[in-house]
C-alpha cells in the first residue's frame, strides 16, 4: 500500500465517521461541530487534489462563515435537543435500507463507468488550481457569472433581512 493510498483511506475514514456522528448526535451543537470536522477533512482532500484555492475558500466560507451562522442560529433558538425516532415508526428502517441501496448503486455505477477504469493519473503543473490561475479564469471568461453571484448575494442579504424583520415593531 502506498503512502498516498494510506493517506486517502485515513482521511476518508475521518470524513465518513464525522458525517455519521453528525447524523446520530442528539445535540445539534455536536452535529454542527462534527460537520465542521467533515468540512476540514474535505478541505484536506482539495489540497491533495491540487485545488489550493478551493481548499482555502472551503475553510473560510464553509467551515468558518457558514458553520458559525449555523451555530449562532442553534444557540439563538435554543433548540439543541431533539428526540430521535419520529412519529412514524417504520421511517428509520426504511430510510436506512433506501440509503444503503443508493450507496451501493452509486459505488457500482462509479466503478463501472469510464472514470473508474482510469488507473494512474497524470502529474499536474504546480500552478494548477492556484489562486492566480483560478482568478485569471474568473475575471476573464467567467466575469458575467462572477458579477451575477454578487447580485445573488445581495438579494440573499435583502431576503434575509426582510424574512427576519420584526413586524411587531410598529404596534409597540
Amino acid at each position: 500500500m502506498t503512502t498516498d493510498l494510506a493517506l486517502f483511506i485515513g482521511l476518508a475514514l475521518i470524513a465518513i465517521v464525522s458525517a455519521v456522528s453528525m447524523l446520530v448526535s442528539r445535540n445539534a451543537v455536536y452535529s454542527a461541530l462534527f460537520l465542521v470536522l467533515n468540512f476540514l477533512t474535505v478541505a484536506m482532500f482539495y489540497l491533495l487534489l491540487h485545488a489550493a484555492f478551493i481548499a482555502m475558500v472551503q475553510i473560510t466560507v464553509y467551515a468558518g462563515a457558514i458553520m458559525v451562522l449555523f451555530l449562532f442560529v442553534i444557540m439563538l433558538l435554543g433548540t439543541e435537543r431533539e428526540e430521535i425516532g419520529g412519529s412514524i415508526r417504520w421511517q428509520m428502517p426504511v430510510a436506512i435500507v433506501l440509503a444503503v441501496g443508493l450507496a451501493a448503486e452509486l459505488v457500482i455505477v462509479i466503478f463501472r463507468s469510464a472514470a473508474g477504469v482510469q488507473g494512474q493519473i497524470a502529474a499536474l503543473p504546480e500552478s494548477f488550481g492556484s489562486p492566480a490561475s483560478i482568478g485569471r479564469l474568473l475575471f476573464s471568461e467567467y466575469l458575467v457569472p462572477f458579477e451575477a453571484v454578487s447580485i445573488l448575494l445581495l438579494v440573499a442579504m435583502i431576503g434575509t433581512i426582510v424574512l427576519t424583520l420584526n413586524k411587531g415593531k410598529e404596534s409597540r
Partner: protein
Amino acid sequence: MNVPASYVIALSGVLFTLGVLGVLIRRNAIVIFMSIELMLNSANLALVGFARSMGPAAEALRGQVFVFFVIAVAAAEVAVGLALIVAIFRSKESIDIDLVNSLRG
C-alpha cells in the same frame, strides 16, 4: 495524491448518501439543513476529483471554477434558509418539522 479518481468519486457518493440519510431520518430542521450542506459538499468533492483526473488540460480548471460558484450559491442559500427557520420558529415555537403541518387538509 496519486489515487484513482474513482476512489474520490466513490467517497463523494458515500458522503452524499449520508446526507440523504440525514434528511430522511432527522426531524430537527437545522440538522436536515446541515445534511443538505453535506450533500452540496460531496458534489463539490466529485467536481474537484474530476478536475484532477482531467488535468493537466486547461479545461480541467473549469471544474474548480464551478466549485467556487457552488460555494457562493450555498452561502446565499444558507442565509435565506436559516432566516426561514428562524421565521418558522417564531410562529411554531419549535423547529421540529413534524409540527410544520398547517397546510394538512
